[in-house]
């Protein structure tokens, strides 16, 4: 019986190993995860780590150097374009591998592979929208052009050069936590990342919501709730400078008045995972006549979802054909928002509606044929293979019509109360386009002509591309390829039984509104209408923001002798122009004599508020709470009739409605027999708001910084890897448009003097590793409105004290 102790002790050992080597639910295998030589400890980077090394990499053509500066910003010096993009891919992978791959999983609808069946709905949304289909087409376009093919191939090879040498213990911590390994990078993944951005920037639509509102309340009422213009309009291009004869004369199909606008057919699809409707941005460029230095200054701050690791990665890429510095996207080659030795460039979102739905009539449940232009037309099927975490496969069969993929049907219940209808989606991001080239060309651009050549490559997502050059030129163009639409086309679900409701063509690029060296001395955009929508030959669709643009133009019109400091002040300005217009109405109608002591306290605070979104003040909070309370009182009775409470019209509609006429028809509560007035609504709203304020005040949460509660979440929502404690100024209508989890994702100011002087910052850090001091080290300075000088290094500055490490690479 002497072997019994051997068996027992061996069994216990093996059992312990199995227990500690197994993933229990979301918990990682503790033995592996905690082992100091394998697990997370290996990701705990020494704070004084020396990143310098000599590397031999396969596929590199010539020796090259990468200088890492004190903020861990790499400065690549390569001998040719291919090596430059190769090294960019290598660095993106070295510092941001998990993030760049995770984003492509999200884009491709592969989240179920990581989290199992609870990701299925999300994945099917992405597959049925045709994300992979669109990316496959984009790869084909990318690989057709020799320049973009070489760029993408080099980038992919660089990413893979890093992945193939990666040891298990060096895997980014998220792989260890979630239990998977990186795949090799491909050009398809680069394309998927582009579609990820297209979805974020050009994927927003409210077609189903609008259809229901129109059907339940009638077109006339809908039209008042969602008008196609705004009173306080200050479009990007002030007057239509082109005065052209439109290349396409769009006509609404005959009978669309009754069949479309006054149709009362409702739909019951609820779209989840919507892109953020707040995706917006500011950019402006002033010419030398307005600056202290006499040279142009270009500024840009794209407002996007804020996450860690950040969407952006800062770098300089230098090779004989170009030398560019700026923000790059881990997942794509090139500098995206930045500057080179001659000029600077930036973007804001064009906001146009390029995603529409058509109702399809299939012959039967097999979906093999659909009715189109008077005959049964065969369907194409695309089989989407979704792999679940346990390796089982879910096959989603998606029907493709002449309009696009059928996103919603009987089989995709998603969040839909099924009504057995079929809706195909027509999305501009499915069309041909080689967007890599715009960045490649902008990085190389030397003058205005190069800029014009570059922006031609942009199809989707449409952007207001801003430009300034050392020779003094400034320009902006509302760029992209947009469908030429008739009024209200695509705002509602359209009939899909023939071609009459299809997009009738694309607006010729030569007709995109632009401005070049205008007399006023500046160009700007902040997601407002590109031109006056009432005089535009094409219907613009989409949701536009007007208040930031209003302020930017007001300030820039007044400013002269502008220096960099002034631009920093402007980018971080917290003045709320919306409140400035709304408060007088509130003050006029709130009956202060009827208020109790508590209410009076908040009334006084609101009255004396300086109209800035200041973190440590209460005024911005009281205003917001009051406005939200008013909004609910005014709209919810109508919205409830359409069973859509909370789907509020734009704030500008209510504000302009009550500014125009205090008898604004929606102030009446349609559920009561009497006729309510604005005065009644407002007093009720304020009393409700005061109660909310009092409760928040008691919990110490009424200060704007606390109420706004800005946080930067880790991409996989792992709280300890997030920054949840940011107490900063700014808000929706301010130029400094910081919101809960959204805001200026990269602030950049470039003064194009002989020696470029540039500043920038983003809320994150250069390393994607939560165990690195460089993971989130920019966050506090970003929250405080500070900037870092952007150092365009030259090769002979190798011994500059800012250089902290040198990576020398040679061909393997």
């Amino acid at each position, binding site marked *: 019986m*002497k072997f019994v102790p051997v068996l027992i002790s061996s069994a216990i050992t093996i059992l312990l*190993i199995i227990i500690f080597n197994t993933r229990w639910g979301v918990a990682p295998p503790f033995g592996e995860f905690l082992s100091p030589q394998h*697990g997370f*400890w290996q990701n705990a980077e020494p704070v004084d780590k020396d990143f310098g090394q000599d590397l031999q990499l396969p596929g590199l053509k010539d020796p090259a150097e990468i200088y890492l500066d004190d903020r861990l910003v790499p400065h690549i010096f390569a001998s040719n374009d291919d090596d430059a993009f190769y090294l960019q891919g290598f660095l993106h992978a070295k510092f941001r591998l998990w993030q760049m791959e995770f984003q492509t999983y999200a884009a491709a609808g592969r989240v179920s592979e990581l989290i199992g069946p609870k990701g299925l709905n999300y994945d099917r949304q992405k597959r049925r929208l045709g994300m992979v289909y669109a990316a496959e087409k984009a790869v084909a376009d990318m690989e057709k052009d020799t320049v973009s093919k070489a760029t993408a191939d080099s980038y992919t090879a660089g990413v893979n050069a890093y992945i193939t040498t990666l040891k298990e213990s060096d895997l980014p911590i998220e792989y260890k936590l979630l239990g998977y390994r990186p795949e090799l990078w491909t050009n398809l993944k680069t394309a998927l990342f582009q579609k990820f951005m297209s979805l974020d920037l050009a994927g927003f639509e409210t077609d189903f919501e609008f259809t229901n509102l129109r059907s339940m309340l009638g077109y006339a009422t809908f039209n008042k709730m969602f008008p196609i213009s705004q009173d306080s309009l200050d479009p990007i291009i002030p007057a239509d400078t082109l005065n052209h004869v439109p290349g396409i004369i769009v006509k609404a199909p005959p009978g669309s008045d009754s069949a479309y606008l006054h149709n009362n057919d409702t739909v019951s699809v609820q779209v989840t995972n919507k892109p953020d409707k707040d995706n917006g941005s500011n950019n402006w460029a002033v010419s030398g006549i307005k600056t202290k230095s006499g040279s142009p200054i270009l500024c840009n701050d794209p407002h996007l979802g804020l996450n860690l690791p950040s969407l952006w990665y800062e770098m300089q890429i230098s090779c004989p054909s170009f030398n560019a510095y700026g923000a790059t996207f881990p997942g794509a080659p090139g500098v995206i928002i930045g500057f080179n030795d001659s000029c600077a460039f930036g973007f804001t979102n064009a906001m146009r509606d390029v995603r529409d739905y058509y109702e399809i009539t299939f012959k039967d449940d097999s979906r093999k044929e659909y009715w189109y232009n008077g005959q049964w037309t065969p369907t194409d099927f695309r089989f989407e293979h979704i792999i679940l975490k346990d390796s089982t496969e879910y096959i989603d069969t998606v029907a493709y019509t002449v309009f696009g993929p059928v996103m919603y049907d009987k089989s995709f219940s998603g969040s839909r109360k099924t009504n057995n209808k079929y809706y195909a989606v027509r999305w501009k991001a499915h069309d041909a386009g080689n967007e890599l080239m715009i960045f490649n060309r902008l990085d190389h651009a030397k003058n205005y002509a190069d800029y014009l050549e570059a922006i031609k490559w942009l199809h989707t997502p449409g952007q207001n591309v801003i430009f300034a050059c050392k020779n003094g030129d400034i320009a902006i163009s509302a760029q992209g390829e947009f469908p030429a639409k008739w009024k209200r086309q695509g705002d509602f679900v359209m009939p899909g039984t023939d071609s009459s409701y299809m997009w009738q063509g694309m607006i010729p690029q030569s007709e995109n509104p632009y401005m070049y060296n205008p007399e006023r001395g500046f160009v700007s955009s902040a997601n407002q209408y590109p031109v006056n929508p009432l005089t535009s030959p094409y219907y613009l669709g989409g949701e536009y923001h007007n208040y930031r643009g209003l302020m930017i133009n007001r300030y820039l019109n007044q400013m002269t002798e502008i220096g960099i400091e002034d631009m920093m002040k402007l980018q971080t300005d917290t003045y709320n122009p919306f409140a400035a217009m709304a408060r007088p109405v509130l003050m006029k109608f709130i009956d202060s004599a009827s208020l109790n002591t508590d209410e009076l306290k908040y009334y006084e605070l609101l009255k004396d508020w300086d109209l800035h979104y200041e973190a440590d003040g209460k005024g911005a909070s009281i205003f917001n709470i009051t406005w939200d309370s008013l909004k609910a009182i005014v709209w919810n009775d109508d919205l409830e009739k359409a069973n859509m409470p909370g789907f509020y019209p734009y704030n500008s509609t209510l504000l302009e409605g009550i500014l125009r006429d205090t008898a604004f028809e929606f102030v009446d509560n349609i559920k009561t027999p009497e006729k309510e007035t604005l005065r009644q609504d407002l007093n009720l709203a304020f009393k409700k708001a005061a109660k909310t304020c009092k409760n928040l005040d008691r919990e110490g949460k009424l200060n704007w910084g606390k109420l706004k509660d800005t946080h930067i979440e880790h991409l996989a929502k792992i709280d300890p890897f997030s920054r949840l404690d940011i107490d900063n100024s700014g808000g929706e209508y301010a130029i400094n448009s910081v919101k809960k989890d959204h805001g200026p994702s990269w602030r950049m100011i470039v003064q194009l003097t002989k020696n470029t002087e540039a500043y920038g910052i983003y809320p994150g850090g250069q390393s994607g590793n939560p165990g690195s001091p460089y993971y989130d080290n920019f966050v506090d300075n970003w929250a405080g409105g500070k900037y870092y000088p952007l150092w365009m290094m030259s090769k002979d500055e190798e011994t500059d004290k800012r250089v902290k490490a040198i990576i020398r690479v040679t061909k393997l």
Partner: protein
Amino acid sequence: MVKYILSILVTALMAFVSGLYMPWWGIAIAAFLVSAAIPQKPAFSFLSGFLGVFLLWEVLAWWIDNKNNGILSQKISTLIGLGGSSVLLIVVTSIIGALVAGFAALAGTYLRRLIYPVPPPEKV
């Protein structure tokens, strides 16, 4: 006494080497081999395996954490419910490795005894 200290140190060393070439459970093989090679009483062999890896992981984790200023250990400690304490995380880390190594060492000693039976103690 010297034998036990020696076996603790050799276990730590072998466990470290295993970590360079093997998955984390290489520590079990290291502890097993050491106690199969060095004759020890079962209780002491468990303790030497346990302490060998406990010390190794404690020192490694502490060393890494110290150079990292505790940036990551605090986050992980919060994540797995240890309240953000780096010290506690280092101790939990070490105990997990130590338990595995302790039982593996015990198995090694029993196996040795199976092959080379210990002579019964002389009667007084």
